[in-house]
């Protein structure tokens, strides 16, 4: 046995060497393949991270105005929003991509997170005065003021509880019924926060005006004098940069957690449920508990991102939360490839950039350079129509997404797993009604 393994290793090395020689990289390639595997695996991510982390330093020197197609590069302020929405997309990916539960109400988690930040770090509750690690505000300020760092965790935990509360009664439903129930929650919770300004005379959410101002994060004066960390972001001249780095840190933590989760026992259970719920149940996976965990963890990241963006915008307003946001996030997951973290990150970054300023910028560039003054178009007005087109086209022509998850791609390439569609989601089995539909409509383009 050991000898055979050596042989295999040798032949693998030989193959690699030929590949390197053939690719013409020569000595540099040789050195590269000589590096330990972890280094090779992580360096693209590190390089990406380096480019992202130093963005505030070189954004000013990038050309702005009339860059072909994109008009200008996103400002640091826009980049914060982009990062936060990408974080939410990665969170939604746990529910939709890993576990195969279509969630059309993810905005509910965003809202719960944002309002938790509003309750725990603002002057909303004038009846009480409670300070815990708050920075950047007067010590006499009324209301609950807890340190934002703690609030981020609390909001995430509370939202996870909310996810469990929504999940427990509904997760025994499958497929489209579950989608509709989540959609219902996604509509109820924003309406609740809009209307809950006088629950028996008690102002919980301040109605349509929303909760504002919400405290900003910071490290307090003792850390400031000791290591020079900022006292409170909002008082700093470079507030946008600080928010940017914090958002990047949250995104990276989310990505790392999601990668580790995917490879964990729980993650493999999720994927098993996604592939075939009945078979997974028969293999002894506790379906309800596993699915509820997916909900809770997806909600956790959504809540954390929601609380952070509330702190960044210094407010939580009910008009931020509507069905469109849920679909927008879903669109990121679909475009990137359900279950594929890097795909979702890239698609999330692109789509949220389009949402924040990209579409408007592209419209400006097109109007300046292509369309005559008499035929100007408003691209940004039709943003959701554009997302709709993206969703439909992806579903029709590339349902696995731009960067498919490796596991799924392998299944497709090996071809031992039926057609491309089989098992991406629940498979119809013979005893389900409508089972015969597969292929009944004549040979479809992909049937």
């Amino acid at each position, binding site marked *: 046995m050991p000898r055979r393994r050596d042989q295999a290793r040798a032949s693998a090395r030989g193959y690699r060497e030929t590949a390197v020689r053939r690719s013409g990289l020569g000595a540099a390639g040789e050195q590269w393949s000589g590096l330990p595997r972890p280094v090779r695996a992580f360096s693209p991510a590190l390089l990406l991270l380096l480019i992202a982390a130093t963005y505030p330093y070189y954004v000013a020197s990038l050309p702005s105005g009339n860059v072909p197609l994109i008009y200008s590069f996103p400002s640091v302020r826009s980049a914060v929003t982009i990062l936060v929405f990408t974080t939410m997309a990665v969170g939604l990916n746990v529910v939709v991509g890993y576990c*195969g539960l*279509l969630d*059309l109400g993810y905005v509910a988690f965003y809202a719960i997170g944002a309002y938790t930040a509003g309750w725990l770090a603002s002057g909303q509750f004038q009846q009480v005065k409670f300070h815990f690690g708050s920075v950047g505000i007067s010590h006499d300020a009324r209301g609950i003021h807890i340190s934002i760092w703690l609030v981020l965790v609390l909001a995430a935990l509370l939202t996870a509880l909310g996810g469990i509360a929504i999940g427990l*009664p*509904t997760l*025994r*439903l*499958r*497929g*489209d*019924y579950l*989608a*509709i*129930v989540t*959609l*219902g929650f996604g*509509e*109820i919770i924003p*309406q*609740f926060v*809009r*209307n809950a300004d006088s629950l028996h005379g008690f102002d919980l959410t301040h109605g349509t005006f929303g909760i504002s101002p919400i405290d900003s994060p910071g490290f307090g004066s003792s850390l400031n004098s000791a290591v020079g960390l900022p006292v409170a972001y909002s008082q700093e001249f470079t507030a946008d940069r600080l928010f940017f780095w914090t958002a990047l840190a949250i995104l990276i933590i989310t990505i790392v957690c999601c990668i580790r989760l995917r490879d964990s026992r729980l993650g493999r259970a999720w994927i098993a449920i996604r592939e075939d719920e009945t078979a997974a149940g028969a293999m002894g996976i506790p379906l309800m508990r596993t699915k509820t965990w997916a909900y809770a963890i997806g909600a956790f990241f959504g809540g954390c991102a929601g609380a952070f963006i509330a702190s960044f915008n210094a407010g939580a307003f009910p008009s931020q939360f509507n*069905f469109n946001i849920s*679909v927008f996030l*879903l669109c990121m997951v*679909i475009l990137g490839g359900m279950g594929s973290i890097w795909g979702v990150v890239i698609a999330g970054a692109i789509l949220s950039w389009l949402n924040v300023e990209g579409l408007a910028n592209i419209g400006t560039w097109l109007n300046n350079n292509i369309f005559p003054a008499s035929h100007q178009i408003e691209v940004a*007005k*039709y943003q*959701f*129509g554009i*997302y*709709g*087109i*993206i*969703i*439909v086209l992806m*579903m*029709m022509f590339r*349902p696995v997404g731009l960067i498919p998850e490796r596991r799924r791609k392998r299944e497709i390439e090996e071809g031992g797993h039926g*057609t491309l*569609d089989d098992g*991406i*989601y*629940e*498979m*119809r089995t013979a005893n*389900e*009604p*409508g089972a*015969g*539909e*597969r*292929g*009944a*409509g*004549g040979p*479809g*383009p*992909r*049937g």
Partner: protein
Amino acid sequence: MGLGFVALFGVWLLYNLFDNPTDFFNIFLIGLTQGSVYALVPLGYTLVYGILQLINFAHGDVFALTGLFASTLITSVFKLDETSAALTIVGGLLATFLIAMVFGALVNATIELVAYRRLRSAPRLAVLITAVGMSFIVQNISLAIFGVNFRSVPSLVSDGNVFSIGGVHYNWQSFFVILVTFPVLVLLTWLVKSTRQGKAMRATSQDPEASAMMGINVNRTISFTFLLAGALAGVGAVLFLVEFNIRYDTGFELGLIAFTAAVLGGIGNLSGAVLGSIIIGMIQAFNEGPFLWAPGSDWTRSIVFGILIAILVFRPEGLLGERTPEGG
């Protein structure tokens, strides 16, 4: 637990009946009218769900697009208003109904042809996601053509009273809705129960493979179902237009209400859809009525969705439906 809620609601209704009978009956009639306006839209969901097991999210937006189209017909093409002669109004409305039906049917069938047909063998969630995408596309088409403003038509039907007993009034405008809805429902029942095409529809929804073997053209039957659903949405849209205002995004919310009605009645079940919409119309009217402890119109949406969730959790097969595996 579910029964407990229903019982509580019944007690609340009885209390209001004895507390203020006049208001109660007035609100009851408003609810009936609202329910009848809704009734034709859930039928579209139910028909399509019955045959494809697909929640056609785009249905509500087809409804809105057709309604906007009909408003243009009434105000710009036929130029109807309160002063037109009675015969002109009747003729114009009839023509509007017919054209709106054809328009809605064509739009709906086109959506099926372009988007859903390619996905016939794809997993169900892929089609569902496509439907959400189509909904946004249709909504944006309405936005591009008709702009962001609400459209309304002049009140073409007299709002004089049909009858007035005590303080209870029932006007022609409300009666008009029922006058249109019920013949359409009878016609639909006949179409589904007695015609060859209706039989093909029922067969396909039971077992598409077997019906294909029996020589039924499944694709054509599905197209026919979408045509039918679109035509019903067309009639519903004109009725809605006569009663209320319409805008590019009206369809989304109404679609959700209609879907709730379809689920309430038991999805896939035609009479269930009508029953469901009458109940939803009533709930809406009573909720917004001047009653003790009525939460008010701010909460209507939450209540409708609350009902939707409660039904899916406690009785996923609906009031008249049969149990499906999705209900777990």
